[in-house]
Structure formats: structure tokens, C-alpha cells
């Protein structure tokens, strides 16, 4: 009785003490995990010894001995597995970057179309999203690769893409309906000349830009313009805070970034040309050829991811309450200003986190390239290299680490952005 009156913590048995229990459970969990890891390590080393394959990362210096059908840097069969890794990584990044840009453009167009007051456009957008999202991505990749690009004509019968084929097709259509004006379209088509983009069973042929001497000056001018634009923005911000006067930063920056390189370009006499692809015999000479694997993969990834981005954009725009646009109207803001200052910033705050998620998904999904033989990181490294060296643990660990690193860097950037935008909206 005395003890209870003097206070102090109540006496409990050791096994009922919360601190003891929590420490005990944590030690048990940790012990189980460590025991599993230890067992895995022991088994792995025993199995590797039994199979007689080498281990360690020494294989990265060995000669690869296989060719790769698309390389952004110089590569030959005598190069090492380490170089194969770099070639694959660059190919993955190429698909990821082009894919993200195109998917964003298409996704925004479709997302806005779904909110259009035009009934037909909104319905078409909905049908697109539902169809694409409910079919597996690998199915779509194989469809574009095997069924669409695989059945394209040979180079001699290539399909030309451009204004000229469209105009001559319109001309033919008008002629078939026996209407006047067919010749005008045909002569216009002829005056434009042959198209520069061709589609055939060997991929897509594009003109190759040729950069003449002194082009590096144009690049330097562009870099300078970007720097100037940043300085300008900081200055405009400070002036806004100090005096309340606005400055058309966007237009000025645009003018700088187009104008400065443009002036240098003109001063140098426009050192840009195009090498046009031409059909010689059975194949095209000149120009850049995109391999069909790349075209099919990009097409599938872009259309697939765009369907998801469209939903993200739609949700983001719908998340801005109606009162926001009504209030900005009441404040006397013009429609453009209201969009730029009130609606878009709030919609973007909702759109950007899931949008980044879609970029990550696209990058991870690009590993499906292995199914059609596009030489991305996964196909050349976890595919061919693994088959040749049998060093499964090292190779799969490296491959997983690359994708993990991309994910982690993106999520760190995302958290930083979220913290920053939340701070801005709180004050």
C-alpha cells in the first residue's frame, strides 16, 4: 500500500514491460533475417563451387565477342562486357528519354481531349484510354513489332511519310470523285519533292542533319542564352518583390533562347544541311535508319504510357475546384492570366508526382525490349552476357542496382519538389 502511494512506475513483470517486449521482438526479427541471409550466402558459395563457374566482377574486363545492332558509342565484338553494359545502358536511356517526351505530349493532348466540351472528342479519348490500358504492354509491343512492322513492304516499296504523299493521295481521291482541282494538288505535291521519311520492313529512314563548321558557336550561344534567362528571372523576381512591377520573363527568355543562337547561325551563313535518304538498288543510302525494334518499342511504350498520363492529367485538372476559376474571374483576371497564375500551378501540383511515377514505369517497362531483341541494358546484359558467362548473381545484381538507382534518384528529386511546392503554397 505504501509503495503505491509513493508513486513511481508501476511494477510489472519483465516479460510484460513494453520496452523489453519491443526490443525482444526486434532482435528476433533481425536474427531471423540475418540467419536467412547467412544461409543464402553459404548455399550460394557451395552451389557456385559445385558448378565451377567463376565469380566476382572480373568478367567485366573479358571480351564480349557478340555484335549489337544499335550502339550509340563505338562498339565492336572485341570490346569487353563492361563496354556492353555501357552500350545497353545508353540504349535504355535513349528509349526512356524519347519515350517520356513523346508520351507526355500525347498524354496531355488526350487528357485534355477527355475534358473537351466536344462530346465526340471526349468519347474518342475515353475509348483510347480504356482500350490501351486494358491490354498488356508486352502484347502491344509484340503486336507492333510482329504484326505491324513485320509486315511492312521491302525497302523498294517503302511507304513515304510526309506532305507529298498526303497531297497526292488527296489529288487522287478528288480525281476518283471526278471533281475539279485534282491537278492543283498533284502539282503542289510534285513541287514539294519526294518525302524524306520512309517506312519499310527494315525500320524507319530519316534524313540525317549535317552540322557544318562553326556549329559549336551556335551551341555556345544557346548555352549563354539559357544562363542569361536564368539571371533575368532572378532579377525579375527581385524587382517584383521590391516594387510590384511585373516583367514578361517568359517571352524575354524565349526571345533570348531563339534569338541569340539564330543571330549566330545567320552570321555563320547557316551551316546546317540534311543528307537525304535515297533508294539505290535494294536499299536506302544515306540518312539515319531507326531499327524496327526501336520503332516498335517506342511506339508501344509511348501509346501505353500516354493512356496513363492522360488519366493523370484529367484527374489533375479536375482536382482544381471550380471556385478557383470563378474567384480569379471575380478578381478581374483575364482568362489567360487566370489559367497561368491560378489554375495551372494548382493542377500541376497534383499532376507532377503521379506523372513522375509514369516516367519511372516507362523506364522500367523499357526492359520488355528483350522480348523483341532491342539491345537495351536488360537484353544485352542480363540476356546475352548472362547466357555467355553464367554469372547470374553478379549480373542480375548489377542490373537491379541500375534500375533501383534510377528509381531512388527520381524519388529523392520528387520528395524535394514536393517539399518545395508545399512550402510555396502554405505561405
Amino acid at each position: 500500500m505504501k509503495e503505491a502511494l509513493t508513486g513511481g512506475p508501476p511494477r510489472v513483470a519483465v516479460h510484460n514491460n513494453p520496452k523489453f517486449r519491443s526490443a525482444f521482438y526486434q532482435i528476433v526479427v533481425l536474427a531471423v533475417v540475418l540467419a536467412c541471409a547467412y544461409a543464402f550466402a553459404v548455399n550460394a558459395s557451395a552451389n557456385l563451387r559445385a558448378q565451377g563457374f567463376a565469380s566476382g566482377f572480373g568478367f567485366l574486363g573479358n571480351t564480349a565477342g557478340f555484335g549489337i545492332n544499335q550502339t550509340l558509342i563505338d562498339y565492336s565484338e572485341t570490346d569487353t562486357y563492361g563496354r556492353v553494359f555501357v552500350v545497353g545502358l545508353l540504349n535504355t536511356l535513349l528509349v526512356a528519354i524519347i519515350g517520356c517526351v513523346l508520351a507526355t505530349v500525347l498524354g496531355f493532348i488526350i487528357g485534355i481531349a477527355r475534358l473537351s466540351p466536344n462530346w465526340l472528342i471526349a468519347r474518342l479519348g475515353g475509348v483510347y484510354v480504356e482500350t490501351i490500358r486494358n491490354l498488356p504492354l508486352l502484347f502491344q509491343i509484340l503486336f507492333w513489332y510482329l504484326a505491324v512492322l513485320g509486315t511492312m513492304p521491302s525497302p523498294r516499296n517503302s511507304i513515304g511519310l510526309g506532305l507529298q504523299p498526303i497531297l497526292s493521295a488527296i489529288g487522287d481521291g478528288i480525281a476518283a470523285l471526278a471533281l475539279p482541282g485534282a491537278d492543283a494538288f498533284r502539282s503542289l505535291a510534285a513541287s514539294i519533292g519526294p518525302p524524306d521519311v520512309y517506312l519499310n520492313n527494315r525500320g524507319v529512314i530519316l534524313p540525317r542533319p549535317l552540322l557544318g563548321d562553326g556549329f559549336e558557336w551556335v551551341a555556345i550561344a544557346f548555352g549563354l542564352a539559357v544562363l542569361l534567362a536564368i539571371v533575368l528571372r532572378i532579377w525579375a523576381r527581385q524587382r517584383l518583390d521590391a516594387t510590384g512591377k511585373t516583367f514578361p520573363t517568359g517571352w524575354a527568355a524565349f526571345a533570348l533562347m531563339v534569338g541569340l543562337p539564330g543571330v549566330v547561325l545567320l552570321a555563320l551563313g547557316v551551316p546546317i544541311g540534311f543528307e537525304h535518304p535515297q533508294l539505290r538498288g535494294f536499299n536506302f543510302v544515306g540518312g539515319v535508319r531507326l531499327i524496327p525494334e526501336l520503332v516498335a518499342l517506342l511506339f508501344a511504350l509511348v501509346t501505353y504510357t500516354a493512356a496513363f498520363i492522360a488519366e493523370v492529367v484529367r484527374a489533375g485538372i479536375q482536382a482544381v475546384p471550380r471556385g478557383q476559376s470563378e474567384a480569379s474571374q471575380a478578381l478581374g483576371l483575364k482568362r489567360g492570366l487566370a489559367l497561368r497564375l491560378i489554375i495551372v500551378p494548382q493542377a500541376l501540383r497534383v499532376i507532377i508526382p503521379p506523372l513522375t511515377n509514369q516516367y519511372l514505369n516507362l523506364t522500367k517497362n523499357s526492359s520488355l525490349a528483350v522480348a523483341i531483341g532491342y539491345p537495351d541494358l536488360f537484353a544485352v546484359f542480363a540476356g546475352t552476357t548472362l547466357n555467355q558467362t553464367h554469372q547470374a548473381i553478379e549480373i542480375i545484381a548489377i542490373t537491379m542496382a541500375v534500375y533501383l538507382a534510377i528509381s531512388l534518384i527520381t524519388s529523392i528529386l520528387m520528395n524535394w519538389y514536393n517539399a518545395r511546392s508545399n512550402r510555396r503554397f502554405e505561405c
Partner: protein
Amino acid sequence: MDIAFVRRELIAPLPPPLATRGMLGFARQRLFGGVLNTTLTLLSLLLLIVVLPPLLRFLIIDAVWDGASRVDCLPETQGRPVGACWPFVAAKFRQFMYGFYPEAEQWRINVTYALGVILLVPLLIPRVPYKTWNAIAFFGLFPLVAFVLLVGDVLGLPHVETRLWGGMLVTLVITFTGIIGSLPLGVLLALGRASKLPVVRMLATIFIEFWRGVPLITVLFFATYMLPLFLPGNWRIDPMLRVLIGVVLFAGAYMAEVVRGGLQAVPRGQYEGATALGLGYWRMMGYVIMPQALKHVIPGIVNSFISLFKDTTLVLIVAIFDLLGQLRAAFADPNWATPVTLFTGFAFAGMIYFLVSFGMSRYALFVERRLNTEQAR
């Protein structure tokens, strides 16, 4: 001074102008209001004209409906342009559905499917009673029965090796195993991530973020090539089992994030109330928190099942032939090599994939609406 005539009663309102009513009003407002709107409508109509009639011609009007070999699907034989070659699908139907499962044993697959449907349908209809027993039968008993039926080797059923399995069978087995494996794993991981014990929380977070950060195909390669190395040398794991383990780990990590969202939506007062009643951790979670959390995220759970269903196609890269894998294998058959075979096969498989995923997403929407009305009451 004239006395003006004042009407005593209100005139009945005129009907709205013809142009704003009915079909005409709809068309004027939603299709042809303004230059931009009209242009968009015309462009959409053009798109529909370019796409729809050829699609219809290919799938139905010009399609070949019966035949025995590739010859029947050639324009020269038919004497007209040829659309889809449906006899190809009919000839390969067994392969698409069962893979190379021995023909004499295929009744076992059909019995399994029938059992699954009988148990699943009442589970999906909200009005049917005995949900708990139904769920126990579907998630607990049915997998055991299906395993015995499909693998065999007991009760006088001959053993069928998993490398003979294929087609829709593999797609459904992987999806179903992924579902019943990932749900408990996801719940445990979500609890771990929300735990107050720092070591448990850290391990669960690392586990979840690791599997979510890598593509599924690396997980399948991990399961196929690396997992056997981690186990004692005399253990042999079946290739199908390896893939199933990989899929469950991967889907479990995604499921954990969905469940975590549900846990966060449960109000604090529920935890405090349960503690005040003297419930311990597991009772509190099992009786109070989890039922509410899971109910919140049923649409999210169904959505991750849809992704899982679509992702099963990836197993063809590790040489397990699901529906898409069998489709690809069927294209290589020279007996059916025609210009339209590829498009026919993709049209068939596309319809199956679309119907299943679309059906699941509609169901998620239905449940979501139902839950919303319950909350509004």
C-alpha cells in the same frame, strides 16, 4: 385616360427554342458550337470513317469462318479480299487454352475452372449470404483442390509436369496464385511499415521499395536464375514455382502500398478506441483496423489484380508459355502461315485480355460506388 388591360394569370412559359432542345440542341452545343468545335467534330468523324469500316470488314465481313488449313485463308482460294482467318484460332484453340497439357487429362482443367467459377461468382455478388464461408472456400480450400487436380500424382490422377502447362491455364494459375499470395504478404508488409518497432519498419520499407524499384522482368530473372543458387544444392524447384515466387514477392510489395493507403485512411480514434477497450495489437488490427482499411482500398486492390493479370504475359521471356507465349508459338506453324494470321491471332488474344481486364475494372468501379453510398448514409 385608358385603363390598361392587366393579365390576371401568368402565361405558361414558352418551350425553349428548338435549337437548344433534344438532339438538335445537343448537336449544336456539344458538337458544332463554334469553329474550333466543328473542326474537331469533323476531324473525329474522319478518323472514325478511316478506322471503323476497315476494322469491321477485317473482323466480320471479309473474315473466313471455316476452313482446314492456310489454303482456305488465301485470297486466291476465296476469290475475294480476305479478312481475319478464324479457322486458325479454332485449330489452335486447345493450345491457347491448355498448352500441351495431355488431351486425356484436360477435363481436370475444366473441372478446376468450373469449381473456380462456382465459388467466385457468389463471392462477387454483394447480396449473396455466407460471405465468410465462401471466402474461406475460395481462398483456402480451392487452391488445394486446384493444386491436386492440376498437378496430380495422388488419388490415381497421373502426374502432369508443369512444363506441359500453357496458354490460358498458365495465365490464370499465375494470376490466381499472385492474388492469394500477395494479399497476406501485402497486409503483413503494410503492418510492418506502419509498425512502431524501428527495425521492423526499416526492414519492411527496404523490402517494399526494393521490389517496387526494379522491373518485373528482373524479378523473374532473379527467381529463375538466382533463387536456385540460394537454396541447398539438392533442392530442385520447379520452373513454374520459381516464377510464382517471383510474382508473389513483386505483387506483394505493390499490394503493401495499397493497403498502407487504407491504413492511413482509418481515423486515429479507431486505434484509440480499440486500445481503450483493452485489445492487444493483433486483435486491434484484426477486428478493428484491417476490416476498415481493406474496405477502403478494395478498388485499389482490384486495380493491382488487373496489373498482375496483364503482367503475367512477361513469363514468356523466361520460357513459360502463357496465352501470349502460345500465340507467338502458333505463329511459327507453317500450316497456318498466311498474311492475315498474325492479325487474327492478335485480335483473338486482345479480345480475351481486354474482356478480363475491362470486366475487372468495371467491377472495381461498381464496388467503389457502392462503398461511397454506404459512407454517405
